[in-house]
């Protein structure tokens, strides 16, 4: 769901008013069964999904019915038959994802590269339906469905799954399009027991998440977005600066989305997984990956890394690199994402095999090793964002050359960088960066104080109201698209 889109809130309101009116009348006349709450939630989610994307909805409904029927069949079978069903369902889910997301990349990039190296002509462009636009949410709901198949297969509880419960599990409107990618063990029991319960504590907690999410997205991410110029490739100072801005933007954009989802779910009495845990407070890349896009990282850990490795723990570094490269590829069918994934995998290995001795040495000789660890980690993440933000692989090469060229760091480039912004632009940017830095500092403070939640200060009742006020004051006039919608 596009929370920045007015139609989302409008449709939500148009559905909610008649539905809750009928519900309260039904309850007053003792004609409201609990199952109707589940059906109401299902209708709400599906209507909002249709409003968000009809093409994606059609694919989603097919996958939903297919997955449900096959999981039900799997639960009634044992041994090899159950394995065969689980394998078939996962293969179909991944095949649908691959068709829409990766087929043209394989044909136009990989195949062209291979045939070109052998002296053959590149294949012509494919003109299959749906090839050049990824249905919104496909990457997320496919992964959630796959996880459900695996978890149901592994589960000792083989009782039948209610159709309405399953639909609500995979289509829950706050998170169906961009996560968090939820798991059966955490999320399904909440769905099975679902009732609309608008308690004050849920409304308050939900508002605090919602307020933080809206502020991160509409004020910070959307006000940073216009400053990031991908075309720049000659000025090293600007390259670093834009990469820094993008690093901030992608976090505030995606964490903002996740927190809005969390808030909406909390208002309905559902607790979703906190998808970000103040990743920019991390003092190592390992720690960063425990804090960044938590549900995707744990998905790859549980369904790719650990099963691939099995008992071959001596091969763990290799499987770690493979898993990270795949997780990069999940973000999009482009070389820059593959590079980004591999870069983070390599960083982890470099940190393990070279960084540890170095860190021990530095730790004994420097006054603030913690600060240094944080700065190096944040710097590495910014460099990674250079790969992530640039899908033009030729221009990415140029940018890397610029960054490695000492002459690109000249003083004239500093003045050129400064003169590329008007006074008004500089003022607006300085204000946005001040607010962004304050948010990051408050996250750091919560971590230093060992609070239960990294966002404890930002979610305090007073702060939530202040952030809501700031959102009304400073929300960008032109909202930018959620970055993760393209994945």
């Amino acid at each position: 769901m596009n929370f920045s889109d007015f139609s989302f809130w409008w449709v939500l309101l148009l559905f909610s008013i008649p539905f809750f009116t009928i519900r309260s009348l039904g309850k007053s006349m003792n004609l409201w069964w609990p199952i109707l709450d589940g059906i109401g939630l299902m209708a709400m989610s599906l209507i909002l999904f249709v409003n968000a994307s009809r093409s994606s909805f059609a694919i989603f409904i097919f996958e939903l019915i297919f997955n449900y029927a096959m999981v039900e069949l799997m639960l009634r079978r044992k041994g090899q038959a159950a394995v065969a069903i689980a394998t078939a369902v996962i293969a179909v889910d991944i095949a649908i994802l691959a068709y829409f997301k990766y087929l043209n990349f394989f044909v136009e990039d990989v195949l062209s590269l291979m045939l070109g190296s052998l002296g053959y002509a590149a294949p012509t462009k494919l003109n299959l339906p749906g090839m050049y636009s990824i249905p919104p949410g496909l990457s997320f709901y496919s992964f959630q469905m796959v996880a459900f198949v695996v978890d149901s297969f592994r589960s000792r509880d083989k009782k039948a799954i209610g159709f309405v419960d399953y639909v609500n599990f995979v289509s829950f409107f706050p998170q169906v399009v961009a996560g968090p990618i939820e798991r059966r063990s955490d999320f399904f029991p909440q769905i099975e027991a679902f009732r609309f319960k608008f308690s004050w504590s849920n409304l308050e907690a939900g508002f605090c998440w919602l307020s933080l999410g809206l502020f991160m997205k509409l004020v910070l991410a959307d006000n940073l977005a216009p400053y990031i110029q991908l075309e720049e490739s000659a000025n090293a100072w600007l390259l670093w600066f834009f990469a820094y801005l993008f690093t901030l933007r992608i976090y505030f954009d995606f964490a903002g989305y996740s927190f809005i989802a969390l808030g909406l779910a909390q208002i309905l009495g559902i607790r979703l997984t906190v998808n970000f845990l103040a990743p920019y407070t991390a003092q190592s890349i390992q720690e960063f990956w425990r804090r960044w896009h938590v549900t995707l990282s744990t998905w790859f850990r549980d369904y790719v890394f650990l099963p691939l490795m099995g008992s071959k723990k001596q091969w763990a570094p290799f499987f770690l690199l493979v898993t990270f490269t795949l997780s990069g590829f999940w973000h999009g069918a482009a070389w820059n994402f593959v590079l980004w994934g591999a870069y983070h995998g390599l960083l982890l290995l470099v940190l393990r095999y070279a960084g540890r001795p170095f860190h021990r040495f530095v730790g004994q000789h420097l006054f603030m090793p913690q600060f240094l660890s944080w700065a190096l980690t944040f710097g590495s993440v910014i460099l990674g964002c250079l790969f992530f933000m640039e899908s033009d692989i030729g221009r990415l090469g140029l940018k890397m050359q610029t960054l490695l060229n000492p002459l690109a760091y000249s003083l004239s480039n500093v003045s050129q960088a400064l003169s590329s912004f008007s006074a008004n632009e500089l003022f607006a940017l300085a204000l946005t960066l001040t607010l962004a830095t304050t948010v990051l500092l408050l996250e750091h403070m919560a971590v230093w104080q060992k609070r239960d939640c990294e966002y404890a200060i930002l979610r305090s009742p007073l702060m939530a109201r202040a952030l809501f006020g700031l959102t009304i004051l400073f929300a960008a006039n032109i909202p930018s698209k959620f970055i993760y919608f393209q994945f």
Partner: protein
Amino acid sequence: MQLQNSSSKPNPELQPADTATSVKAIEAWLATKLAKQLRLDVKTLSVHEPLTRYGLDSIDAVTLVGDLEDWLGLELPSTLLWDYPTIEKASQYLVKDFDISAALAPGSESNSEQSDAPDAPAKTQGWGNLWRQISGS
């Protein structure tokens, strides 16, 4: 987080004193093992601090759980140190959800010279084990 293949057996009969002693014993074992693996001074480790702060990565996390399985003679979730990311939390979880009395009994095989014990044959987990269970091989 769903635990896979765990041989979890809660131990409600443990007295509070026993529980505290068991938690301390596992904390000590984990701290010693971590200090050795990460080449740190064991005195600098805090049981309350997230393990990633000491540089624990995914590879360490899975190998350490493997060592812990060998020591306790139990099958543990591979994601133990992700789900319980401090020495204290991991130890409390193990004492609460598993029957570890045999492993911690004085004179038990696993309780003597744990860190120098020879490696047990590796357990097959993941898809390999799944296939083995199904095919019965």
